């Protein structure tokens, strides 16, 4: 039971990595009854890794993309998903 986390741009730089696996077993569930893990749960778990993580992941306007699609914090995360975190996009 794990997901892939991808980080891009300034977030990737701040945290010094671009991709890693995250075990879902250690993530506290949002709702004890349904044992659902969502994007907010993942962010909270990663933020607990230290102040660098906390600051980087709680910057305003951080974007979350689950399996290549932008989602809100309440999107449910399942085994094998790919969750990407990054600052607002600036292409074109």
């Amino acid at each position, binding site marked *: 039971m794990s997901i892939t986390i991808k980080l891009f741009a300034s977030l990737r730089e701040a945290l010094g990595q671009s991709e890693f696996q995250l075990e879902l077993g250690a993530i506290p569930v949002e709702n004890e009854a349904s044992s659902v893990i969502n994007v907010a749960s993942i962010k909270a778990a990663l933020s607990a890794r230290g102040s660098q993580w906390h600051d980087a992941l709680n910057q305003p306007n951080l974007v979350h993309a689950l399996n290549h699609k932008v989602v809100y914090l309440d999107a449910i995360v399942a085994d094998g998903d790919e969750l990407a975190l990054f*600052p607002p996009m600036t*292409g074109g």
Partner: protein
Amino acid sequence: MTVSLQAEPIDVVAEYAALVGGAPGAAVATFTGYVRNHTGENPVGALELEHYPEMALRVLEELGQQAAERFGLLRWRIVHRFGVLPVSETIVWVGAMADHRGEAISACECMMDMLKTDAPFWKREQGPSGARWVASCESDGQRRARWERGERA
């Protein structure tokens, strides 16, 4: 496949010819973005473009298909580069072919406006005082919102 992500410079001549083909529709509009040598007061030596390849492909395909439906396009094409881009080189090219000029031009503008806020690319400018990430532009969000609200057609 009407989207390309590439490290190589965009061949605007070949892209135009491929879009138009042998039997052009009545109206063809294109937009090309180039690397500027400055941002405001700051000189820029080159642009680094980081991207999220799988998501970028998906988003650009969806953008193009939505524009094609909304504006009744006969053909469309989006090309976006990544990597280190020297000043004056191409960054992005969009083209749209339709039966009427309004549709072709609006489609180009809409694709560009959506791409700016929705496609996972991040620019970093290299200059004499080092490299810095480009901040997202509030006006880009406003331009995008006009299409969502149907204010622009």
